[in-house]
């Protein structure tokens, strides 16, 4: 074949340049936040324009963030919702996926239809809110865990994975007297570890980032997840209660730095885990994509 032409070479060059620009625009906001959070608040307030390194150095903002009782309880609550919520998600999704992956089970198609319908038509916000409220879930941690226990998309991904387990394995287990429960627990799940890992990640990230349900269903600040506290600090702009010990003049700059430190505190866990988790994330969306 002929070597690449001038046109192709310049395309390659332009393409690579475009990708570098894209990466810059994706990463720089995080870098800016990271540099700002480590900067000296006073110097940062005087600085104009983009940052390429921390301006001065101070951990004061982080100290203020970790001294804030709201952030600490928010963190604690979020960890609770992530762990308990994800566990509940997994149990429910696995039970449903197991049923739907069985051959020759009556009502399977009816159940599948019932589930798929909900992907296209739902009762909507107000009826859901009234339901959760009538069930007495408002202002309980369960409001963050029980509604949304099963994600239909994840259920279908898991069902597809379970179907891929060879029938002969479970048949021989059944001959040996294994119950359905044993088949799921001892045969299907151990052979579905990759997809289960993906499910853990999807559900856990969703719980970590959830705020809307919390805003709808929780009034008691003691139950607020981290994201709802973040919303107050970052968007409705109330850093005042964190800066009470700073004198009036210093309040503004440290308030800014606290915002940046808060973003870091809320994002670093995912940023740190991300490189390790990435292959699972990608695998997950691929499974979802290819089987539909």
């Amino acid at each position: 074949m002929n070597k690449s032409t001038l046109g192709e070479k310049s395309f390659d060059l332009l393409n690579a340049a475009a990708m570098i620009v894209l990466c810059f625009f994706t990463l720089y906001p995080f870098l800016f936040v990271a540099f700002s959070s480590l900067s000296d608040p006073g110097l940062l307030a005087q600085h104009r324009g983009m940052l390429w390194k921390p301006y001065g150095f101070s951990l004061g903002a982080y100290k203020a963030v970790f001294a804030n009782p709201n952030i600490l309880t928010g963190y604690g609550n979020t960890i609770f919702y992530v762990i308990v919520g994800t566990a509940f998600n997994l149990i429910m999704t696995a039970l449903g996926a197991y049923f739907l992956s069985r051959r020759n089970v009556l009502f399977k198609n009816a159940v599948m239809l019932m589930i798929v319908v909900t992907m296209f038509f739902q009762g909507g916000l107000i009826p859901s809110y009234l339901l959760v409220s009538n069930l007495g879930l408002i202002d309980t941690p369960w409001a963050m865990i029980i509604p949304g226990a099963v994600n239909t998309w994840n259920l279908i991904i898991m069902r597809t994975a379970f179907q891929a387990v060879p029938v002969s394995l479970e048949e021989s287990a059944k001959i040996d007297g294994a119950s359905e429960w044993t088949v799921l627990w001892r045969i299907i799940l151990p052979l579905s570890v990759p997809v289960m890992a993906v499910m853990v990640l999807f559900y856990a990230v969703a719980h970590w980032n959830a705020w809307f349900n919390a805003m709808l269903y929780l009034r008691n600040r003691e139950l607020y997840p981290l994201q709802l506290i973040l919303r107050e600090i970052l968007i409705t702009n109330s850093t005042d209660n964190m800066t009470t010990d700073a004198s009036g003049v210093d309040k503004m700059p440290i308030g800014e730095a606290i915002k940046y430190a808060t973003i870091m505190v809320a994002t670093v866990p995912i940023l740190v885990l991300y490189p390790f988790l990435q292959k699972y994330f990608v695998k997950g969306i691929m499974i979802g994509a290819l089987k539909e």
Partner: protein
Amino acid sequence: MSRSSNSRWITVGRDLKRNKLLYLMALPVIAYYLIFDYGPMYGLQIAVKDYSPGDGIWNSPWVGFHHFIEFFNSYYFWRLIRNTLLINVYELIFGFPAPIILALLLNELRRQVFKRIVQTITYLPHFISVVVVVGMLVDFLARDGVVNQVLSSLGVAPRSYLSEPEWFRFLYVSSGIWQQVGWGSIIYLAALTNIDPTLYEAAKVDGAGRWKQMIHITVPGIMPTVIILLILKMGSMMSVGSEKILLMYNPLTYDTADVISTFVYRKGILEASYSYTTAVGLFNAVIALSLLILSNSVSKRVSETKLW
């Protein structure tokens, strides 16, 4: 009862008995869907009733289409329709093709290591919470934020972008692209790997350059995926991400930012007019479903690809 239906029930009974544990295992999931998905569908009836918590859903008095008519005649109706559709149309024009273009460009990268680095970086924002993303927007776009600082050094007068209605759609759509373009490209990259490599070999033999290969092999190869996602996108046209808008908008930008779902939240939850906003929500859901069905049948007719 005829004999055949009789024996059918016997079969069902036998199966239930034999597979008792399996059905018991499915029960919590079925109960979950009945309660949390079908329960709200039952609750939809308050759209044609005058719901009061004292009477409950079933006993509240009927009012027919009163709430619908009130909504159609209200000042908000056209504003909400316009905003909901415009934000979605912008997303369709700019947001939808972005991951396709990124996937095609990534596919043309020669160095695998470079490709993987770009992918890793561009997927990242997907995992950042929408609260943090909007928080960064608010901070960067503040009147003395970094964007205004940089622009003012270039001689552009500072503005409060998030308080100006004319900027809302641009900011909403572009920040959405920033967050989702990399993640969105994964599905197309997956579709690309399914294209038969011999097609490229054959094209090269026929003297097709990389541009021709892209137009005649790569693009048609991912077309079914594109169409499926387009149909799904049409189905979600009316349910634009209210979570992010709720975080981003403020009374100054309601004029361009308020969409049906944010209106439902504001009037319904904050002002407790449950029946009225249930009617608004139902109207929205019916249009969304119609759009989905319509786009699916159009796609069925013009191409082989369909959702069902």
